[in-house]
Each structure stands twice: as structure tokens, then as C-alpha cells.
């Protein structure tokens, strides 16, 4: 075990994956000499050389298109998109190609690319360095979408992603890249997809979150404990595949659900979770499902603290939920 920040854990995960398998390579903008703008790829070029750590021209469709070609050929490319906000030039490659290769070829051409990308607000990044648009990718069949919230998960889920057989969107909550640290196992220790993490056990309400919202809801749970409200905290970890069983069993126990994400509310992941609860756990609910989310606006710069859910907003929503029944 070593104490690492989340971004250091990503870096360790990349080192581990590349040491273990010469088919793993990294490509993206500024990932080589510069070690990535967040230093996630620091040291890789020195250890693995230019043929496996590739500084690419500034073209996201170029990065993902070439990564797809490499994957079809049998390599395991890990592509970095510098900010999730800049992924859209590659949207066609991701949605039309990467997500569909296995399917459209009748299984002849699996296409395993890992796309790493920092996402989310709270870093004073304005419209184009803050967005949380995971729902686009969750809505496209054929992509796995995973979001770690701890250093141990960052490394363990990245190793799982690299050795998975399907395309993986590996979204990194950059706001907690350095603010969260924790013990990370040495070596190739993998965290499986499709298993949510119970962060905290509770009986009165289920707080459901992922990514940078996990520390936020944990803080809210602390505050609620002072009020005598026992909140359970569930970190979904992987949105696709979703651990429905964990979601349902938690809400069946507590009877209340508050879903928290920083993405805009309309057609966000919270809508899907709320629908699942309505379909499969309605009779366990004591109160309406609540969502604490970003607003249905572009991401603001000066007022991002108002846009982003914080512990007080979560506490407020939980109190309303408790009052409702």
C-alpha cells in the first residue's frame, strides 16, 4: 500500500499496465514530453519510449481514429483526451465506430480502446474545462463508462479498463485529482466493473453519487449524522454496466433516494436512476426521489460554486426528502 493522490494513482496504473503488457500504448496531446497537462502520463515516455507513448497532433478524431485502428490490429491503446470538453471532434469515431465495431461486424472485430479524459467542474475552468457529459456516452450502446472517485479505484479500475475486451470511457474527476488521497495497493490489483461501492452504511436515506460528487455526499452524510439522519452513501463507480442490484437493495432498505451528479439535470444519469427506482422499487419508496445536480445551463465560470452541488445542497434535499415521508 502507498498513499497516493488520485492523479498519481492513474499514473501508477498506466505504468503498471504498460510494464505488464507491451501491447499497451498511450497516445494523446502532450502526453509524452510534457507528461500530460495534469501529469497523469508523467514518466511514461522515459520508461517506455516514443513508440509506446505517442505525442499526437492536435486532433481528437485523429487520436481516437488511430487508436481504433491500433485496437483492431490487436494493440491495447489508451488514448487521452485532454479535457472531456474537447472530445467532440472525436464523437463520430466514438459513437459511430468504436461503440459499434464489435456489433456491426457480428463480433468479428472487437475494438478495445480505453479513452481517458479528465472531466467535471470546480477548477474555475469555465464552459470548456468543466463539463460533465457522461450521459452522452452512457446513451450509446457499446461503450462502458466508468468513473473512479478514490485513488485505489482510479488505479484498479484503470487496470480493469486496459484489460477489458470492450471500449471504455474512463472519466477522471479532475477536481479531486489532488485533493483526494488514499492508500493504493501495489501491483496489478484490479477493481471489477459493474460493482458499486458502499462508502457508508445508513438506514434513512440513500445518497447516490459518482466521481467528484462522492466526497460531497460523504460530507453531507457527516452533517446529516449530526441531525440524527443516517445516510447511506453509494458510489456507483461504473455507469455502464450499472450495478442495479446495489442501487435497488440500498433504496429498498432506506426507502429514500437522493441522486447527486454535477451534470445538468435534464436527461442526465440521475433521470435514468430515478426511472429505475420508479420501475423496480416504487413500493419501497417513502418519499419522492430527489435529484441534486448541475443546472440546465452551459457551465458558468464566475458562479460555478452555485452551479455545482455541494454538501449543503445535498443536506437541504435530504431534509426535504425526510419531511416528505
Amino acid at each position, binding site marked *: 500500500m502507498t498513499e497516493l493522490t488520485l492523479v498519481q494513482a492513474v499514473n501508477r496504473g498506466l505504468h503498471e499496465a504498460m510494464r505488464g503488457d507491451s501491447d499497451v500504448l498511450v497516445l494523446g496531446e502532450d502526453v509524452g514530453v510534457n507528461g500530460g497537462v495534469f501529469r497523469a502520463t508523467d514518466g511514461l515516455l522515459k520508461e517506455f519510449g516514443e513508440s509506446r507513448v505517442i505525442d499526437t497532433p492536435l486532433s481528437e478524431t*485523429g487520436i481516437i481514429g488511430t487508436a481504433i485502428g491500433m485496437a483492431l490490429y490487436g*494493440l491495447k491503446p489508451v488514448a487521452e483526451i485532454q479535457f472531456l470538453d474537447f472530445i467532440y471532434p472525436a464523437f463520430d469515431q466514438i459513437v459511430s465506430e468504436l461503440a459499434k465495431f464489435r456489433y*456491426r461486424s457480428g463480433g468479428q472485430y472487437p475494438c478495445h480502446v480505453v479513452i481517458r479524459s479528465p472531466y467535471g467542474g470546480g477548477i474555475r475552468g469555465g464552459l470548456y474545462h468543466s463539463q460533465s457529459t457522461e450521459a452522452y456516452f452512457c446513451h450509446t*450502446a457499446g461503450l462502458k463508462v466508468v468513473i473512479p472517485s478514490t485513488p485505489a479505484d482510479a488505479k484498479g479500475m484503470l487496470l480493469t479498463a486496459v484489460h477489458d475486451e470492450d471500449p471504455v470511457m474512463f472519466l477522471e474527476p479532475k477536481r479531486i485529482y489532488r485533493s483526494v488521497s488514499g492508500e493504493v495497493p501495489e501491483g496489478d490489483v484490479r477493481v471489477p466493473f459493474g460493482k458499486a461501492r458502499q462508502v457508508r452504511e445508513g438506514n434513512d436515506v440513500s445518497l447516490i453519487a459518482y466521481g467528484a460528487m462522492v466526497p460531497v455526499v460523504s460530507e453531507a452524510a457527516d452533517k446529516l449524522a449530526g441531525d440524527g439522519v443516517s445516510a447511506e452513501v453509494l458510489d456507483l463507480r461504473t455507469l455502464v454496466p450499472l450495478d442495479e442490484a446495489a442501487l435497488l437493495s440500498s433504496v429498498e432498505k432506506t426507502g429514500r433516494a437522493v441522486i447527486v451528479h454535477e451534470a445538468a439535470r435534464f436527461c442526465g444519469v440521475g433521470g435514468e436512476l430515478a426511472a429505475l427506482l420508479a420501475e423496480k422499487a416504487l413500493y419501497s419508496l417513502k418519499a419522492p426521489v430527489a435529484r441534486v445536480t448541475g443546472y440546465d445551463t452551459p457551465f458558468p465560470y464566475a458562479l460555478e460554486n452555485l452551479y455545482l452541488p455541494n454538501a449543503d445542497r445535498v443536506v437541504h434535499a435530504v431534509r426535504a426528502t425526510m419531511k416528505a415521508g
Partner: protein
Amino acid sequence: MSSGEAAPAPHSKSGGSTILLGPAERLAAYRAMLLSRATDERCISLQRQGRIGFYVPASGQEAAQVGSALALTKEDWVFPAYRELGVALARGVPLELLLDQFMGNASDLCKGRQMPNHYGFRQFRFVSASSPIGTQITQAVGAAMAARHRKDPIATIAYFGDGATSSNDFHAGLNFAGVFHAPTVFFCQNNQWAISLPREKQTRSATLAEKAQAYGFPGVVVDGTDLDAVYSAVVEARRRALGGEGPTLIEAQVYRFGPHSTSDDPRRYRMDSEVAQWKENDPVKRVREQLVAAGQLDDARDKMMVEAARAEVARALELAEKVHPVEPGSFLDDVFAAPTPRLSEERAELDALLREGVVRP
């Protein structure tokens, strides 16, 4: 070329001496071209009869397709667009498999998931095609980089049309290939029309090939109705790729004799006289004349070959029409390597709907 302003196909401008196909190869190429033409003819009529849903003809482009494919080895990787019938046939893809794909039946390797012509055959290193334009170009570059990483002595080839030269991935792909010196051949079949848009409205550049210059590697124009010119250009481009000299862009100037697809009516945007003028350079006719001149073919033998091609299509069609339809639940497979719990649940839901007769395939 603009509508009504027909001009003959240009002469080869690839420079250097042309590498000619041998007599046996030429005859094999002719056979593949005839088969491609016969398949087109039959499939257009099948679509009209409602026996297949859609079709993308390749007529007029047979020399470009077969000639380029013959310059490759089995180990090279092909990244096709959706109009590459001649390439598939020249690489040895059995006609039955193509017809199965057009039918979307139980023997279709793509499992009935894609429209006709959007096929892929892993065994023939013929990658699965899609409908978005140009996306295969960057992929071909990535595969070439991967091959070099593995030290495999192969090239990749990306097939695309004139319209694709305006796409994001054309620019990105050629730029990456130039920067990384990728062993890739970019094979553009300039068939003069991107659906209704004529070549001169696609770009102000005098040729499509000259765009390569901006990316730091050679671009050559060849007469795509000339089997030898095409073959020669691809042999040379492949030699460069494997010799570490980097990528090449080849613009094969051809003409799409038929519609863009069976959903298209080219009379809305181009003159019959232009089609007629290009048909004077029909690539099938050109190879036939070469074979006759070389004493390899006479009228009787030619008639036999044409009929043999048609018979082969008829036989493949007969077989394909006997194959069962795809299994109804199969469209839920292959989304991931293994079904997620959600997909298993949806499969059970569909099975129940089928069982109860609520829905029918």
C-alpha cells in the same frame, strides 16, 4: 467534371514506368471485374424486386478496385468504404458470403446488422465498413502504426471517395500519417460525384492528389479505368510504405456509372451524355480489349466468361435465399463481449414478447 462538360478519363500521371500485370493476373482480374459487374446488375434488380433492401453499385470502378487489390498481399489490411465490391472479390471473399450479407440472413457474418454493402471479413483482412464518410482513414493509419509497432511487414490501405476528401478524418488521417510516417496507402476513387455534388464543388484544388503535398508526402493521379496504371501505382505506394518511405495518396480518376445507391436518381444532377462519354472508357471493356489484343481472349471465350459470372451470381443468390433468417434475439448480441445484466434483462423481455406473440420478426 461538371455536368454536361464530359471529358475523357485522364492519362496516368504517376510518372515512372508502369508495372504491368502478367497475363494470368490480367485474366484473373478480368474475371473479378466481370463478377463485380454481374453482381451489380443482378443486385440492382433484386433491390427493385424488394428481395434486398438497398444496394450500392460499383460499376465503372472495377479497374480501380480490382487493380488496387491485386497489388496487395493477403497480410495487408484493407479499410474499405461501402463501395468496394471489386476489392472484396479480388481478395477472395466468396460471393455467397457477400450475398448473405446483402440478404442479412443467418449466414451473414455481420449477423444481419448492417445495410447491404457495409460488410467486413476478418479472414480476408477486410475491415467492417460503416456509413459515415472518411472514418476509416484515421483507422487505417492507426493499424499501420500498430503493424510497425509489432514489426509486421505489411501495409494498410484506406479506400474512400472524392467526397471523403472534405471530411475531418481525411485531414486528420493524412496529417497523422505524414507526422508518423505510417505505412499506409490512401486510395481515393474520385468517381466525380459525391451523391449530387460534382468534384469541382468539393474542393478548389486542381486535383485531390495534390492535397498530399500539404501533409508532406507524395500524391499521384492515375487513370482509374486503366487496370495497369492503378496496379502499378499501388505496387509503388506499397513498396514505399514497407520501405519506410511513408504514406502515399493515390487519386484514381473513375466514374460512377450508376446511382450513388438504389435510393438515388442521378438524372437529377448529371447529364446522360456525361455518363455515355465516360462509358467509352469502361474499365471492363478496356481490359477485354487488352486481352483480345494479347490473344488471351476471343468473342466466344468472352461470352462464356460473362455468362459464367452471371451464373455464379445466380448460384450464390439461390444459396443465399435458402438460408434461414437471422435468429430474432440475435440483435441483442455482440454489444459487448458478454451481455450486461441490463442486456440480459432486455433479451428476456424480447423473448417473452415473441413467445406471447406481441411482436413477430
